[in-house]
């Protein structure tokens, strides 16, 4: 019998999650939830475990302790096939965009479609790729290699690839890092569009407070492995923790 996971209110749940790399512990007993269709922005200083949190969500890293639940499934207990099924619901925008160097932009987007959606013909895939690139304003650059693109174009292409399979959850690692204010604002607009038009659950790791406040419904603030603040912007502005107040009101 199919398990209808759409009934689960919280799409992502962290339960007392800890992760260490040798003596370095980027996450210590961290718990939070991300409701379906909402956007969570994870903020904090560099090296406080923000990217580790995203990688735990998609199973690129395994928690040492605690549980990471995606649609009610503990991804730490899944085998390769189970993890693959969960990942099909998710899209991931890497900090560096991580486009495949040897593939053209079009092929970067077509790869997951060819591999994961066997029902689509080559023409249908071509149409989907064209539409996805058009949405991020890169249709005319379809045949270019990633090395021929600017940083902002690569980010937009990475976003298009993350969204090409229409994921229920989008994870974005520093989507605006290294970009000028106009380009990062364009990326923020795209993320907001994804959230509002497709009702996609969005989790963004960022240093850009201005962008975070535009996108986020909830905010998680990490400091030295601990979750020191979680809530809406107005809740966090009233926090007793000075660091939390500083982070959320930086704009």
């Amino acid at each position, binding site marked *: 019998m199919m398990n209808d996971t759409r009934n689960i209110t919280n799409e992502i749940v962290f339960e007392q999650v800890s992760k260490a790399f040798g003596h370095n512990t980027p996450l210590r007993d961290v718990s939070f939830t991300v409701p379906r269709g909402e956007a969570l922005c994870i903020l904090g200083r560099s090296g406080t475990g923000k990217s580790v949190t995203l*990688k735990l969500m998609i199973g690129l890293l395994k928690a040492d302790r605690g549980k990471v639940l995606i649609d009610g499934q503990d991804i730490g207990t899944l085998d390769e096939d189970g993890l693959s*099924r969960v*990942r099909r619901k998710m899209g991931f925008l*890497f900090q560096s965009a*991580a486009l495949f*160097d040897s593939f053209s932009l079009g092929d970067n987007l077509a*790869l997951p479609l060819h591999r994961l959606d066997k029902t689509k013909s080559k023409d249908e895939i071509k149409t989907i790729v064209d539409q996805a690139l058009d949405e991020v304003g890169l249709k005319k650059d379809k045949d270019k290699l990633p090395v021929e693109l600017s940083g902002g174009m690569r980010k937009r292409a990475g976003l298009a690839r993350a969204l090409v399979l229409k994921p229920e959850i989008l994870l974005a690692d520093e989507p605006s890092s290294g970009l000028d204010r106009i380009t990062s604002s364009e990326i923020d607009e795209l993320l907001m569009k994804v959230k509002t038009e497709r009702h996609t659950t969005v989790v963004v790791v960022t240093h850009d407070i201005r962008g975070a406040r535009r996108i986020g419904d909830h905010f998680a603030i990490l400091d030295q492995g601990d979750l020191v603040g979680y809530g809406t912007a107005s809740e966090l502005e009233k926090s007793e923790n000075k660091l939390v107040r500083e982070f959320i009101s930086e704009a």
Partner: protein
Amino acid sequence: MTRIWQLFESIGKVTLFGLKAVRDAFRPPFEFEYFLKQVREIGWNSLSLIFASGFALGIVMTLHTRSTLVQFGAEAEIPNLQSMSFFNEIGPLVAALLVAGRVGAGIGAEFANMRATEQIDAIETLSINSFKFLVVTRIAACVLILPMLTLFMDFAGIAGGFASEHVLSNLSWRLYLDRAFANVALANFVPPTLKTAVFGFIIGTVSCYFGYTTNEGSDGVRRASTNSVVLSSMLIIVSDVVLVKCIFFFFPDQAI
């Protein structure tokens, strides 16, 4: 002592990595399209290197053997010596070492760079098994393509030998070929060519291992490409000793 221990540790890890690749090669889904792309990349792009090296080596071999054989009035044996040397040892070994240098270093550096720039993680997030997609396809391509490149090397060497002989003694192509293949039996030709599939497996496995498992940024890229070439070249030469003994065991006529 530590370095020797590290070497054996690396060989052990590479062996497990290779066995995983063999297991995964027979499990669906099969990455046939990407495998063909690798065959083209590894095979087609190595052809000019193999041909130029084989042809030059053929000329040099003939020049060396001629000066000795002429003293015994045995220059008619030059084509035969040339073909036997190339089919038995020079073709397989030199082709494998050249591919280890060109392809092995390339795979090691490419994977290490993909790891450093999170491209391998990106493949995983797209629900694609990166090991099957990247590693298995390249190892399989190396296994398939190396015997073919070896054949190409063999014939390029014979062609180089002919060119040298033709210039020095005006020997005809027809006579050269007759003499070159007069004593060549299938046992001289097939087992040494097929043994290069093992060399291909070594090159693919070692270079994929060092590239795929590193995570050290640009230093990792340098280390992966160097280690790929060094270890695969060493293992090719060591395994050649074992394979030649095996060939002699199964085809005793060759040992005489």
